[in-house]
């Protein structure tokens, strides 16, 4: 089946998003292409149907935000907040992602084939994020649930004030944030990582090349010895 073409040079952004969002109410058009994104904001947001959307070019703020079920592929780079608060489905970025990619995501898979900038996966709550390149500083800040996989390096303050998310990094980590610590890689983690890497199409990476980081759980309860610091 050929894809339905939506051209931002001819059709307003709101109409394009409305056409895609309408698939949640039933429809048989499962493949869509969006031409001329030219860095537009809030493209393909709030989708809730098992459709495939390919965006031919780079996007601005919040592309694929609040996604449910849909697969959104950005054949270019993504601006700040790509796949913000995703619930399920997939968002795939062929190029780089700007700040806070996958922020607050509750489910689904975000794949970044280039680098992701600062605050990747900030406050993630169940999303899986796989980044082929590097991630910037303060990534997985206050991460609560889900998995962040980085094939490259991580910037400063990785996993600061982290709750229960799992962080896997193949390269170097500039520094770990407060209460984030390196953890043992057990068989269940290797199996999980194997599945995530395969899912994300990262066939050239092996689970045993990664190190795992997570919460030391020392911030869960107030320590009376720290009272003088407040």
């Amino acid at each position, binding site marked *: 089946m050929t894809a339905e073409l939506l051209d931002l040079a001819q059709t307003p952004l709101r109409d394009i998003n409305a056409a895609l969002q309408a698939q949640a109410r039933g429809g048989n058009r499962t493949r869509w292409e969006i031409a001329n994104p030219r*860095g*537009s904001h809030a493209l393909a947001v709030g989708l809730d149907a098992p459709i495939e959307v390919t965006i031919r070019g780079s996007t601005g703020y919040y592309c694929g935000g609040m996604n449910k079920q849909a697969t959104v592929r950005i054949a270019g780079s993504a*601006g700040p907040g790509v796949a913000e608060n995703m619930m399920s489905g997939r968002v795939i970025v062929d190029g780089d992602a*700007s700040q806070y990619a996958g922020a607050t995501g509750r489910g689904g898979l975000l794949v970044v084939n280039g680098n992701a900038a600062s605050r990747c996966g900030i406050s993630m709550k169940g999303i899986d994020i796989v980044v082929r390149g590097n991630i*910037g500083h303060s990534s997985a800040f206050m991460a609560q649930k889900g998995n962040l996989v980085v094939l490259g390096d991580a910037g400063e303050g990785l996993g600061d004030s982290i709750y229960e998310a799992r962080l896997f990094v193949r390269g170097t980590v500039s520094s770990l944030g407060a209460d984030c610590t390196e953890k043992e890689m057990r068989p269940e983690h290797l199996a999980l990582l194997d599945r995530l890497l395969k899912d994300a199409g990262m066939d050239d990476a092996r689970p045993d090349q990664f190190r795992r980081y997570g919460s030391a759980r020392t911030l869960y309860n107030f320590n009376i010895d720290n009272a003088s610091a407040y």
Partner: protein
Amino acid sequence: MCGIVGLFAKDKRLEPQLGALLSDMLITMSDRGPDSAGVAVYGHGHDGRAKITLQNGDPDADLDALVAALRHATGETIAATRRGTHAVLELGAGAVNAARRILIDRFAEWRVMSTGGAIEIYKEVGLPARVVEAFDVPGMTGTHGIGHTRMATESAVTTHGAHPFSTGADECLVHNGSLSNHNNIRRDLARKGLTFETENDSEVAAAYLTDRMNDGADLGQALECALRDLDGFFTFVVGTRDGFGVLRDPIACKPAVMAETDRFVAFGSEYRALVDLPGIEGARVWEPEPATVYFWRH
């Protein structure tokens, strides 16, 4: 918010289009800051000559009388070009300081926007589309240029609170963000003899870089010092006669995208600002790293 754009031509054939390209980039960023807008354009100067860009909000202000008075007092031949509320005077480089004193003493209603061999600054309250049209920025030729559209946070919405700020010959700075230690730095710089036109934090950043360069630093070194001494949020784009620099603070929450080809280096607060540049499809596009100095020279 605030929107910043910058374009540095490596290929001389881009120079006649510089004003048009920069204008379109700035208009695209209008919704990041609709209060006021401005541009700095670096044109080709003439050896031994300098330009003073002036602003006067009164459309009936008598430019001829001003030029005659300056000519009489300095003995210089002075060419004057009026563009909207601004005027550019061209005179011998050696007479700039004398002319500036006369302007301050006798023609205070004409405010100095910039001085230098190449720079001209045009800025006003209003949307970018209206501002660039009022000064015919699209018709300007230049080697590099910087534009800003402002959402005011730190000082009043006035012509003088608009960016770019110029505090030294051929220097300019635009800023997205807010500084937290600008009052202390303003006091330190004022003690060293630098003067300020506004209460604006970004003017302090401009003056800080001017001071560092007056002490012998090049633009790249001055920006390294800024990382140490300026506290707060900032993405800066700065220009000198032959240089173009970019700096983001270590937290880097103010957005920035850059593109480079063998013909140009371009900066935008968002990728949207860059999409119509010639050859952008083949450009290297990247997000500048936090706390990292980027610096190009002709």
